[in-house]
């Protein structure tokens, strides 16, 4: 893989900026040229498919059409929601010619259906097995809970090659980063999704349960590929009880970047609400500390209410 289309999506310009930074960094390290779709628009996210079906297809349609026009056969959509909307639109268009015709009229652009959408798990998996293979020089030695949430585990025809009840795409990447994927129960349980502002109590409760289970499974940190899950799990920790607090939540691409020895700041690690500092320095740098000790130090260095 030498080049790949890139659709950052709105979150990655804002709340999910770490995902954008780390994706760009690891791609650079792997020698993959990310070509951002020019003048892309929002995919409509949850709001569009809650309120208007046509809109929920038409907005991603414009993005896909632009990508095709710009000659991008494959597009990475790191945000799980964007991935789901774009690939879902591809599927729906392929299934119904009637819909394809209608949406084409709404958007006023052609789209032949030839753009393949890749998610962050697949992308990181490919980098770990490809361009980064020789660069993963800093085994981190951590226990990692891979959190798939909803949109990277479920959705027929969208998430491919994955057991929806027991997904495993992240495992290879976690191992490539010199870490151990922990077996835990909440890897596909919902964090509350888009209710962060409108139904905050639900998000806090569900996200806390996810973090608590990761902690019980002995995880040092949680990794995810979804900016929405990330903001729920990371930013809402201060509203949680002790079971949820102080668990670093990283993007999968950040973990991969750290294992390549990339600078934590460049990957965006300093931008998380929950301090990821203690795990940012690889084991080799930290000396002979074992992961469990590093977990202990993490607890002390993360004050509950900053």
């Amino acid at each position, binding site marked *: 893989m030498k080049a790949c289309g890139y659709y950052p999506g709105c979150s990655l310009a804002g*709340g999910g900026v770490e995902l954008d930074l780390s994706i760009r960094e690891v791609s650079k390290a792997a020698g993959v040229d990310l070509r951002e779709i020019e003048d892309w628009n929002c995919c409509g996210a949850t709001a569009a498919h809650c309120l*208007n079906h046509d809109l929920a297809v038409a907005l991603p349609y414009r993005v896909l059409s632009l990508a095709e026009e710009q000659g991008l056969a494959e597009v990475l959509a790191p945000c799980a929601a964007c991935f789901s909307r774009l690939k879902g639109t591809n599927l729906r268009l392929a299934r119904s010619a009637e819909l394809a015709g209608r949406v084409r009229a709404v958007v*006023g652009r052609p789209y032949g259906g030839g753009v393949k959408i890749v998610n962050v798990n697949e992308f990181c998996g490919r980098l770990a097995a490809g361009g980064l293979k020789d660069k993963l020089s800093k085994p981190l030695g951590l226990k990692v809970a891979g959190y798939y949430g909803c949109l990277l585990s*479920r959705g027929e025809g969208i998430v491919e090659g994955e057991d929806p009840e027991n997904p495993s795409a992240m495992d290879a990447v976690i191992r490539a980063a010199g870490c151990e994927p922990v077996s835990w129960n909440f890897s596909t349980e919902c964090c509350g*999704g888009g209710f962060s502002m409108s139904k905050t109590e639900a998000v806090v409760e569900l996200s806390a349960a996810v973090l608590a289970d990761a902690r019980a499974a002995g995880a040092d940190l949680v990794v995810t590929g979804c900016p929405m899950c990330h903001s729920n799990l990371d*930013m809402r920790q201060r509203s949680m009880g002790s079971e949820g607090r102080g668990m670093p939540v990283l993007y999968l691409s950040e973990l991969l970047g750290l294992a390549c020895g990339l600078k934590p700041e460049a990957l965006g690690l300093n931008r998380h609400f929950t301090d990821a500092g203690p795990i940012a320095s690889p084991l080799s740098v930290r000396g002979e500390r074992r992961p469990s000790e590093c977990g202990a130090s993490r607890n002390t260095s993360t004050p509950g209410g900053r």
Partner: protein
Amino acid sequence: MSAHALTNRESLLAARIREETGVKVAECYQCGKCTAGCPMARWMDISPNQIMRNLQTGDEADENRLLSCQALWHCAGCLTCTQRCPKGLDPAAVMDVLREAARRRGTVPASARKVLAFHEAFLKTVEDFGRMNEWPLVARYKLATGDLFADVLLAPEMLLKGKLPIVPHAIRGREEVRRIFRESRKKEKR
């Protein structure tokens, strides 16, 4: 609307669901697995399996109650129900159609106002800029709900961590995006 109803009790709403999602609500045998796995069921006034049941009766009163319930607005779209439905139905997609219908008929309950306001603020922002931008979104949402102080404490830190771009980004193809909104809305008003 399809002339041929699946059952003689199939309501117009159920027929619309069948056309838009392929889900035949009559096939639901009320096992309750959707409710059992739903992470948001605790915050719902009508459980997911009851939502399906209310679509089966073909009774107008049931349908009205359904379209004015808050459960529709508390669905996170996590697809757990769809993933595990032993009949291969897609309750999550049914929820989408019901939300659309509720909004069209103006039956969204007051308790779901915040959720709807958020979605609407989100889409308005996208319509204006072509993308979602945090500041305009939050501003619109707070104006709509009067919920001025919630999460205010998060903002400074987000700013500090570079998570709140100060200048909203507007794309060049804004006019194209607005056209998409205009055209899609035609169907909404239908």
